């Protein structure tokens, strides 16, 4: 729970946004405190900044992650109006997945800057695994929805028809080395080498 607003973050993306903001605010605050501490200990402003720069980088990253989660949700909610229910569901699953994945890769920060407990982390893990399972049947449909044609993908592995092995073989045949059955290096180097009886 966010103490000031009594919003429970458990299993809601809005809650994760609050958690991300608490982490970002915590990182920013900690960086500020540490710069001030170092300055008080006699370091110049520039040195205090440099000595705190690992935390500063982390603070900027945390700020951006919190912003991105919040903005993606609000933009998505705004743009989803008029879309079919099945598509809306998938889009929300994806936004949730981004947020939950962020939370699980920042467990240390959550424990440090919010009041989550070990049990909450397990909830997050379960939540993410559920999302993976729910997204599984639609994975190909989603990437088809990106509508990237084969010429733009330019990949033997990703063509719409899925004929991966056929295309890999076709690409192998384009190697200039396959233009002749015996490369001239055989006569120049390999043959004398093979016959040299080392």
């Amino acid at each position: 729970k966010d103490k000031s607003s009594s919003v429970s973050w458990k299993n809601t993306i809005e809650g994760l946004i609050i958690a991300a903001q608490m982490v970002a605010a915590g990182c920013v605050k900690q960086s500020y405190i540490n710069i001030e501490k170092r300055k008080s200990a006699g370091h110049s402003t520039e040195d205090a900044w440099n000595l705190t720069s690992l935390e500063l980088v982390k603070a900027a990253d945390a700020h951006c992650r919190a912003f991105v989660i919040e903005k993606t949700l609000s933009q998505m909610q705004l743009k989803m109006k008029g879309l079919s229910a099945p598509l809306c569901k998938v889009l929300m699953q994806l936004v949730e997945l981004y947020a939950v994945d962020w939370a699980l890769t920042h467990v240390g920060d959550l424990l440090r800057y919010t009041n989550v407990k070990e049990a909450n982390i397990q909830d997050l893990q379960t939540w993410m695994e559920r999302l993976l399972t729910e997204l599984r049947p639609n994975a190909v449909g989603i990437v088809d929805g990106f509508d990237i044609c084969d010429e733009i993908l330019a990949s033997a592995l990703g063509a719409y028809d899925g004929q991966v092995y056929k295309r890999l073989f076709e690409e192998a045949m384009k190697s200039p080395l396959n233009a002749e059955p015996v490369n001239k290096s055989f006569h120049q180097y390999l043959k004398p080498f093979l016959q040299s009886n080392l």
Partner: protein
Amino acid sequence: VHPDLQKERDKCTFDPMELTYFLDGGKEKTFEKHAREQFFLNDPELKDTVPNEYLSHKEKYEVAVRKACLITRKIREFSEQGHGGVDSYRALLGATLGSAILKDGNPLTLHYVMFIPTLMGQGTVEQQAEWIGRAWTCSIIGTYAQTELGHGTFIRGLETTATYEPETQEFVLHSPTQTSFKWWPGGLGHTANYCVVVAQLYTKGECHGIHPFIVQLRDEETHEPLPGITIGEIGTKLGMNATNNGFLGFNKVRIPREQMLMKNAQVLEDGTYVKSPSSKLTYGTMIFVRVVLVQDMSVYLSKAVTIAVRYSAVRRQSQPKPDEPEPQILDYVTQQYKLFPNIAKCFVFRMTSEWLWDMYNSVTSELESGDMERLPELHAMSCCLKVLSTSDAAAGVETCRLACGGHGYMACSNLPAMYGLATAACTYEGENTVLLLQAARYLMKAWVQAVATPNELMPTVKYLAKGA
């Protein structure tokens, strides 16, 4: 269609076409996109006879220049047929059509993405009238040279000098050291004949910091470098080997006073320096490029996950249950975890880039009326989003490559080339760690404000008030 892939499509719970229309911004936009793709991709002149990877470095460049010129002509042709010009430029210079036709980069990209926008953003009305028309019709090809061999993101450290001489009303551009040579700009090597050069301005014996100048580099007829100009290409790189990144040095090269871009700061005929109303007014071009970058990163990642997901539906591996066939690798949770969060990121970057674009437009119009209040906030957010999108896209493409095992390592998977393009963006337009530290500077100021005057915080940092 491979039966495994068909089965996947049969069980999808939504209509992928609806998603396409949603992402493209409507049915009409999708039709327009398809028309554009057909127009460019069906041209035999733009198809490769030999895969790019088998060409020499020189051949890659020559093919790229040929295609880049042809693409530009075709964009005009396409526009004349009544199709949107801006969308075509965007698609042909960016990560969609552009990187399909020019897999290793386009030597003309900076002409459109940096040279012309800089003239528009930092030139006076007279300068715009003189240069933009010529640039737009490609009578001249330009690039943008800021970074030097010895200095990258820290632009105050640039060493190239532009010293004004009132008696001749000329600037003398000079590279005092080897480290002051311009280093990296795309198209600079052998393509551009003009360039916006960023140099330390000296007038009346005083340094006024960095300012932009338009400099002719090569003869418009022969393309020979002009006297005093040392120019060339920097050599092979991890990726983008056709973008023709170059180096540039000046040995007391003279340019007329009118070729300093003077929309903001000015040098009068007698050498008097007139300061810009704000040192931050030059952020505009930089932020515009970052918006484009975030959009491109979303496209690269979308391409990578499309490849890896389709491959994972077809590829089968191991036999966990006896007497049952090998499962599709997409059924392994570890594989899902490699792919699905990256699919999510494609949407995240798309949504945030749309927000950034809207904010860029509103702050730019506020700037026109002299209101600069939100500029630092926009700058900080554009720094952060550039970092996040490029680092996540590079890592995401690499994860997709790993998800495709040894086949992902093949150049024909297109994942290695895509990684080269995505990871390059972590470095150019501001190295990522440096940008995060710039954003952190804004956050430290915001924190002080959050404690003192929390009601005055800008929207993106409002949440700090609670923590304070």
